[in-house]
């Protein structure tokens, strides 16, 4: 048996290219018919799409495997089945992505109106109101976090690439890698612990949130800036140094400008990462329904916290709260996607020529 199937591979007895598609189509038609029959016979309440797809996929794998094994032998049959399984894993991963984006878009559109962007939740019970206070809060907290993280992150990356040698640099690199894995809630607890020691345990304000977010943002900025600085060709540095330019001026005038597009991209990606953070802000920035333009006083709500509280603290007209939550989520996704998109486009347009 083994001998004949090995021989089949060598002699090249293969199924035609259309085989995959024919079996694929046949399996899914068969599965659809089965489930249609079940639905008509009232075994299932209505046509079970999910069931039909799953049965169709399994049917395909079994049929393709068995037929291929008979005609082409064991090895090719395994190859076909594994190709099917691997493609299936990808399609399975797309299901949550599509479902999530579709639901958010469909349910978020209900309240995507002017008043969502022009009013806060102050004194709002039930329908109406909006997320302006949360949008302002997000802008303030994110801007403050960037103001803290970007200089520290970029300077650290410059140190690591241009100066850093030996143990200190290795320790920093390692800890930054580890820092990317700090749970966001721990960052929030840290900011709380820090400010509670100074201001007492009831402390809630926007700047605390910014400090917590910086802890999450710095490693991302350092990592991406480091990668970009490493791409700058050494000849540029050497040419500048050979002209007698001091090292710091070389970095400021030659190295950083060459890599600036990539650095900006990295910063935008890191902003996109922290703008959706909820847990640390829940702890240190608190909840509020009113506008607050002061980072250093009083509670400040951001968009993710707004989404969370609209869902968890539902009032009299629950649907109105859920609608607002979805709209907040939609706005958040749009912001994050835009940031990612602009960053990618910038990276492509401004990339130093010849380095990729």
């Amino acid at each position, binding site marked *: 048996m083994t001998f004949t199937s090995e021989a089949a591979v*060598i002699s090249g007895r293969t199924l035609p290219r259309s085989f995959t598609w024919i079996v694929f189509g046949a399996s899914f038609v068969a599965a659809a018919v089965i489930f249609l029959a079940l639905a008509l016979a009232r075994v299932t309440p209505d046509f079970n799409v999910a069931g039909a797809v799953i049965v169709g996929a399994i049917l395909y794998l079994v049929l393709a495997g068995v037929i291929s094994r008979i005609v082409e032998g064991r*090895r*090719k049959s*395994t*190859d076909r089945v594994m190709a099917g*399984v*691997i*493609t*299936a*894993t*990808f399609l*399975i*991963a797309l299901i*949550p*992505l599509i479902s*999530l984006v579709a639901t*958010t878009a469909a349910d978020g559109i209900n309240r995507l109106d002017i008043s969502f962007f022009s009013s806060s939740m102050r004194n709002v019970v039930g329908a109406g109101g909006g997320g302006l206070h949360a949008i302002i809060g997000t802008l303030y907290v994110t801007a403050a976090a960037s103001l803290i993280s970007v200089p*520290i992150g970029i*300077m*650290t990356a410059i*140190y*690591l690439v241009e*100066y850093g040698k030996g143990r*200190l640099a290795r320790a920093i690199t*390692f800890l*930054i890698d*580890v820092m990317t*894995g*700090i*749970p*966001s*809630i*721990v960052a929030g*607890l*840290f900011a709380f*612990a820090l400010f*509670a020691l100074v201001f007492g345990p009831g402390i809630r304000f926007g700047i605390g949130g910014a400090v917590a977010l910086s802890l999450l943002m*710095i490693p991302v900025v350092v990592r991406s800036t480091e990668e970009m600085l490493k791409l700058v060709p050494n000849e540029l540095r050497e040419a500048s140094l050979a002209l007698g330019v001091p*090292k*710091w001026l070389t970095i*400021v005038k030659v190295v950083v400008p060459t890599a600036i597009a990539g650095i900006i991209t990295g910063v935008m990606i890191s902003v996109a*990462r922290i*703008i*959706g*953070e*909820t*847990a640390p802000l*829940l*702890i240190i920035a608190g*909840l509020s329904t009113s506008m607050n333009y002061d980072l250093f006083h009083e509670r400040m709500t951001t968009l*993710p*916290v707004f*989404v*969370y509280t609209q*869902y*968890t603290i539902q009032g009299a007209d629950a649907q109105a709260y859920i609608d607002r939550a979805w709209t907040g*989520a939609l706005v*958040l*996704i749009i912001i994050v*996607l835009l940031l990612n998109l602009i960053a990618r486009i910038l990276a492509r347009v401004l990339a130093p020529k010849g380095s990729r």
Partner: protein
Amino acid sequence: MFQAVAMAAGVLILAGLAAVAIFLIAKAMPALVASPEELQRDGTDFWPYVPPLIFGTVWAAFLALLFALPLAVGIALFISHYAPRKLAQGLGYAIDLLAAIPSVVYGLWGILVLAPAVRPLYEWLVNNVGWFPLFAGPVSGTGRTVLTVAVVLAVMILPIITALCREVFLQTPLLHEEAALALGATRWEVIRMAVLPFGRAGIISATMLGLGRALGETMAVAMVLSPSILISFALLQSQNPTTIAANIALRFPEATGLGINALIATGLVLFVITFVVNALARLVINRRKEFSGAN
């Protein structure tokens, strides 16, 4: 001067990380040294309260990994070796999009879309395979169980594992693959004999990074799970072991006195767990980098 500023920034990061540890310990101390009576007054009893939380955290993360790992390896292989070359990059972006979506949106989706959708499946499981301890009844009426949470977590950690695996798979020496093909290997045999063995260390470290993510994920768990403090392996019941992060998020706004300190102490436990997991993952990656150039 410039060098000093640059170095100071680096040292600041070291100091920052040390400060995280120090401040967390300082704020956790009161709960660690307090007597049970004092803790009880503020609504917590620290020592019997922590093991179930650790169990819940590890259990949910483990389940998530169980779903995410095979999928992620499959997706990475699909993008690196199966998808048409022109499509591959776009498909990679699609998976990266999953990483860009904020966790609170996953939470919302998990509770409003996923939990109702899986309820019939859970009922079927309990009615038909309820004899199996993991699927023991009574079934949760809301679908807000640890299994649902694990699915949401799996979706959330999928992108990071996929991205790392893809990178490693793409670095398989082309000569190895071509040699296998020249010997008559099928595509799957190339993967099994050349790509996977080469990428093993990468897969392991990607898994651990994913595990670190899943351990610390807060909002999705806090929103989807109907929590209790207990140790239970049952997947489909309405009483589920909650995780450290979700427990902090849910209780912190109302906590007072020593209750706050106790929550921070649990946060410290989480910090230590994730730190160890991530450090191990990075050590594996870094050791590998020396001889292969993989990252």
